[in-house]
């Protein structure tokens, strides 16, 4: 079974993003970039499937700028076998990414596409569902557990009220939630090995996909800041203020 794992290069999750002074977006120049944390979980799960003998090949793919190669090398250091970079300077929206992935699925014929449930930059939480829609495949989103057996995937999903379990006919799309696994750190020997693994670069046009954005960014602004509060000295003072000042209890 082949597993395709799309990964995105985003501002590192430890960095507080700064809004550009001209209000056109968030500053990325000179900012540390890393693999989207949810995608790391997806890579980890795919590699574990291979280690269990369920997956035979793990292919990482990224849509983005040249430096997204680094993200793909990280995926290969974690255990992906090879990688594909769909090179573009356009900030491709989930719809465009889903179309690119659909074209790659046609080329690669994976049985499972494992994605992070959302990217921590645009917080869209859409690509996996959209790819599933375009392919007409089953989807198991927000997964905290995956089991593959007899041509089906059993997926436990984190939903608003608790957990839901579904079975999906393969091929299928699964998106990873936080508690699916804890991704490994790539070891130095594996980082060295990853440098020699194959990385193919193609253009969206090679796949016949138009990635023109549908959304125009009118402006990006800082959210209104909360007014600095006060420190109270005691529990009694706190309760008194909640009652008399804030009037919330």
């Amino acid at each position, binding site marked *: 079974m082949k597993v395709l794992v799309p990964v995105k290069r985003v501002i590192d999750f430890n960095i507080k*993003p700064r809004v550009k002074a001209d209000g056109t977006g*968030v500053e990325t120049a000179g900012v540390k970039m890393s693999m989207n944390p949810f995608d790391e979980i997806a890579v980890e799960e795919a590699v574990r499937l291979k280690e269990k003998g369920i997956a035979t090949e793990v292919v990482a793919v990224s849509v983005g700028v040249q430096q997204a190669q680094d993200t793909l090398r990280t995926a290969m250091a974690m255990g992906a076998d090879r990688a594909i970079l769909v090179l573009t300077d356009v900030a491709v929206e*989930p*719809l465009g990414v889903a179309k690119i992935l659909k074209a790659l699925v046609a080329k690669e014929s994976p049985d499972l596409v494992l994605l992070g*449930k959302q990217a*921590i*930059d645009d*917080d869209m*939480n*859409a*690509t996996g*569902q*959209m790819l*599933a829609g*375009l392919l*007409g495949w*089953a*989807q*198991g*989103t*927000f997964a*905290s557990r995956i089991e593959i057996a007899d041509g089906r995937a*059993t997926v436990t*999903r*984190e*939903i*608003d009220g*608790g*957990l*839901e379990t*579904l*079975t*999906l*006919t393969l091929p*299928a799309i699964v998106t990873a*939630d*936080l*508690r699916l696994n804890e991704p490994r750190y790539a070891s130095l020997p594996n980082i060295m090995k990853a440098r020699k693994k194959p990385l193919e670069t193609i253009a969206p046009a090679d796949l016949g996909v138009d990635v023109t954005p549908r*959304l*125009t*960014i*009118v402006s*990006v*602004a*800082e*959210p209104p800041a*909360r007014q*600095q*509060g*006060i*420190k*109270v000295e005691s*529990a*009694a003072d*706190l*309760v*008194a203020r*909640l009652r008399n000042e*804030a009037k919330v*209890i």
Partner: protein
Amino acid sequence: MAVLVFLDHESGIIRQASRSAVTAARALGEVHALVTGDASVAEAAARIDGVAKVLRAAGAAAAHELAEPLAAVIADLAPAYSHIVAASGASGKNVLPRAAALLDVQPIPDVVSIVDADTFVRPIYAGSALATVRSSDAKKVLTVRASSFDPAPAEGGAAPIEQVTVPDGPALSEFVSIALSQSERPELESARVIVSGGRGMQNEENFKLLNPLADRLGAAIGASRAAVDAGFVPNDYQVGQTGKIVAPELYIAVGISGAIQHLAGMKDSKIIVAINKDPEAPIFQVADYGLVGDLFDILPQVEAALDKAG
């Protein structure tokens, strides 16, 4: 043109967040509500103030709000609507992007403000920035943050109910089971008061120390990602960027340091209280009232002060 709003329900009860989606949708046009489940769900939808028509997708294929058949239903109905809306919950986020793909539309998730029929404000980077985006798609597909729109009243409407057919297709996914957290407390997303615990609670047993305070205040109980990851409480307690987004009247953060992704889920609360032993914890930057100290000492003191005040 009218607006189609998908109302999700849990155990037959329409989620309050979906009534907030009705309020958001009314700003865009006449609201038609799409529901699944028993007739009683459709009847409840018909009573919501502001709903002009209810479309009920009945039958096994539409049960459990499975994404594959529901997205197909929405795509079938879409030609009659300018906008397709749902609350930004697990169900809306599961179904709407799939429907959007079938319609060749880029969805707009987590809308917090509607500027006009094409232009919407949504948080990005865990709420570190607010993006105003304009869609060039002929049809808009959006999910809306319940904390940004008041819920439409559950009573007051008397909309007609129509059945809609679920398109035939292969059953790609099948429902196996559901495990809902059992709680007598209010839902996180609709609670007036929330008491939330973090890593500082130390373990599952200690986390229960929040119960008496929550009981006393009629509060829901939430948690930071750290507390959920550590297994103190189930996933549905999580407040934050990838958990629930809440904006209660009063949010009491106990032993929560205040990571950006947690603040993203609660910083629109009216009053925020932080109890933490680290005076430098980032949670104090958003707190209206901060109390520095050992939470295990402070919690009983707060309860005593509440009792004393009556």
